[in-house]
């Protein structure tokens, strides 16, 4: 498709924004200049993003009121629920159990014009400098359909917030662009889970941007769970600004999809921030998952630890690119990174690339990556005890994934993901 023409037309047709007009317009201009990233774009070497913008993709950036049924995420039945349908925030389907006053959830366009306008102005679009590639700008041109989430200072949420991205693709190919701006006030604590579901099996592509600010002493646990099915492609950026002594744990779990690209940015812009980043990609069929992470250490005394693990079966492929920047003021940075892959499919592949750029001298940084096969000695040991080859492999792979699984502190969800993994590995007695 001629993407620039297509989206310029869509832009003209979307319902006009009240308060984000200028923001959207500048993003549309940026997109019109850059277009979609070409294959030669270094950041998009493996994810051939242009191929995903196919003729026949439907994009409706205006909310419709149609009834929609979707599967809720097992293990999170009690949680707060924020729902997007085809990329647009849907207030009617959203359901909060949290006491009013603890948390604010409203359309992003509204927030841009009320008492939270300052926050929106300060944080919306902060990710764009890290992604000069058209994709981020394309989402920005339609940002008014997004949501604003604020957890008030000192509030500890009793239940997680689960954000459902529902794709109503029962009747055709769908393109969607969710936009989220999250804000955790000082000393607040919250768990935010993103999950993706579709109503049908037509191809779909979602292009998401979620930006969050974790204020001083606040604590965010963020989980992104991808298990939508082989028809769905995704590009998403999770961009987290961390203020003084803020702590974030981000866990990205990818179990299925067509072509998936996840950007995760940790912006350590104040002292003593701490981030933990975990990823697990367990892939089969032709699924491709491309994880790009950035830790940008700008101030002293920040800590980050990153562990991504991949298991690739069949013809699937897993890509990891981990950037760590240590700016010249960021003395006493501790930054660790590790990526481990197991190839089990004959045509499976893994690519891994650490990129460290360090401009301070008093820092501790390390990185490591491995691509291997299952340990034959271990496999034989298990089989010699009467355990079938399938179960022996499942036990070993489950153990490999266990390092990531056990990081999910929210038990209901951990149990559910654990079951999904056992099922995938066909463990059976």
């Amino acid at each position, binding site marked *: 498709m001629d993407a620039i023409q297509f989206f310029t037309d869509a832009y003209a047709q979307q319902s006009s924004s009240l308060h984000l007009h200028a923001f959207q317009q500048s993003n549309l201009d940026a997109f019109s200049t850059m277009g979609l990233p070409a294959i030669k774009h270094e950041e998009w070497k493996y994810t051939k993003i242009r191929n995903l913008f196919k003729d026949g993709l439907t994009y409706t950036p205006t909310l419709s009121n149609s009834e929609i049924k979707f599967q809720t995420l097992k293990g999170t039945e009690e949680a707060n629920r924020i729902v997007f349908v085809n990329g647009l925030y849907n207030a009617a389907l959203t359901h909060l159990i949290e006491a009013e006053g603890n948390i604010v959830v409203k359309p992003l366009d509204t927030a841009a014009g009320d008492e939270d306008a300052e926050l929106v102005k300060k944080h919306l679009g902060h990710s764009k400098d890290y992604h000069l590639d058209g994709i981020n700008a394309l989402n920005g041109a339609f940002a008014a359909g997004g949501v604003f989430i604020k957890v008030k200072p000192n509030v500890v949420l009793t239940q997680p917030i689960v954000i459902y991205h529902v794709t109503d693709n029962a009747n055709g190919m769908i393109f969607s662009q969710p936009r989220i701006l999250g804000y955790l006030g000082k000393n607040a604590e919250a768990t935010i889970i993103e999950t993706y579901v579709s109503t049908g099996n037509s191809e779909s592509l979602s292009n998401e941007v979620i930006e969050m600010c974790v204020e001083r002493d606040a604590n965010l646990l963020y989980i992104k769970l991808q298990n939508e099915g082989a028809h769905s492609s995704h590009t998403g950026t999770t961009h987290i600004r961390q203020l003084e002594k803020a702590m974030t744990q981000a866990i990205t779990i990818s179990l299925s999809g067509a072509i998936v690209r996840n950007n995760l940015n940790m912006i350590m812009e104040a002292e003593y921030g701490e981030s933990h980043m975990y990823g697990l990609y367990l892939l089969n069929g032709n699924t491709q998952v491309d994880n790009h992470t950035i830790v940008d250490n700008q101030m002293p005394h920040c800590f980050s630890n990153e562990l991504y693990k991949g298991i690739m079966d069949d013809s699937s492929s897993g890509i990891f690119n981990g950037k760590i920047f240590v700016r010249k003021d960021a003395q006493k940075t501790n930054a660790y990174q590790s990526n481990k892959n197991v190839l089990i499919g004959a045509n499976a592949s893994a690519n891994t690339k650490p990129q460290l750029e360090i401009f301070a001298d008093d820092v501790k940084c390390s990185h490591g990556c491995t691509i291997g096969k299952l340990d034959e000695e*271990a496999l*034989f040991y298990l*089989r*010699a005890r*009467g*355990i079938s*080859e399938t179960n022996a492999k499942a036990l070993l792979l*489950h153990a490999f994934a266990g390092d990531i699984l056990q990081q999910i502190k929210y038990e209901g969800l951990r149990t559910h993901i654990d079951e999904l993994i056992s099922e995938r590995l066909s463990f059976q*007695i």
Partner: protein
Amino acid sequence: MLKIENLQARIEEKEILKGINLDIKPGEIHAIMGPNGSGKSTLASVLAGRADYEVTGGSVEFLGKDLLELSPEDRSREGLFLAFQYPVEIPGVSTTNFIKTAVNEKRKYQGEEPLDAAQFLRIMKEKMNLVEINQSLLSRSLNEGFSGGEKKRNEIFQMAMLEPKLAILDETDSGLDIDALRIVANGVNQLRSKDNAFLVVTHYQRLLDYIVPDFVHVLYNGRIVKSGTKELALELEERGYDFIKSEADQAV
């Protein structure tokens, strides 16, 4: 029970077993001794079904079945057990969960219902007492960070749980302190019956004081070059392998 005829095997072009003959009947205990590198572990591995070894000739019959045709897991489920000379450390797999899976796979193979948690726990307690192994060890990852002796004891515990027809113990006595040696031997003796058999690979007479063999064989250079009763082990302890080596080398 086990009938090995003219078994030959190699690894990466290297001929290691050069025609092994061995007949083990129910109720018997056989000991295999022999110098380092003579092929004892290779024999054990070939019997257990390790894929690295290529069987180039001969046959092995186990309880009426062609053993060499069976997958490693089916050999185990049919009642063959190998206590590894070097048990493998498997991080992230809990010992208890592993044993439960093994026991239940065997039951399934035999057409029995899997054990429920309570039944499994009861049997596990009973066997733990038998081999005097500690609960804390079993709640850890399989063999991970276990001391040499703990690994060997865990092998015997697995044997007790799986109740094999034929157990091959590959140097289970190496690295054991005197108490552990007694416990391991005790475990073997308690599991011993007229229906099962043991093949014990060892370098030391010491173990054979506790587990008294019916036959002792000497493996040298890929062949069993001498067989006898328990007195042969005593003779070897006294005289070393030289006299056997020179006899065997002359015969070739």
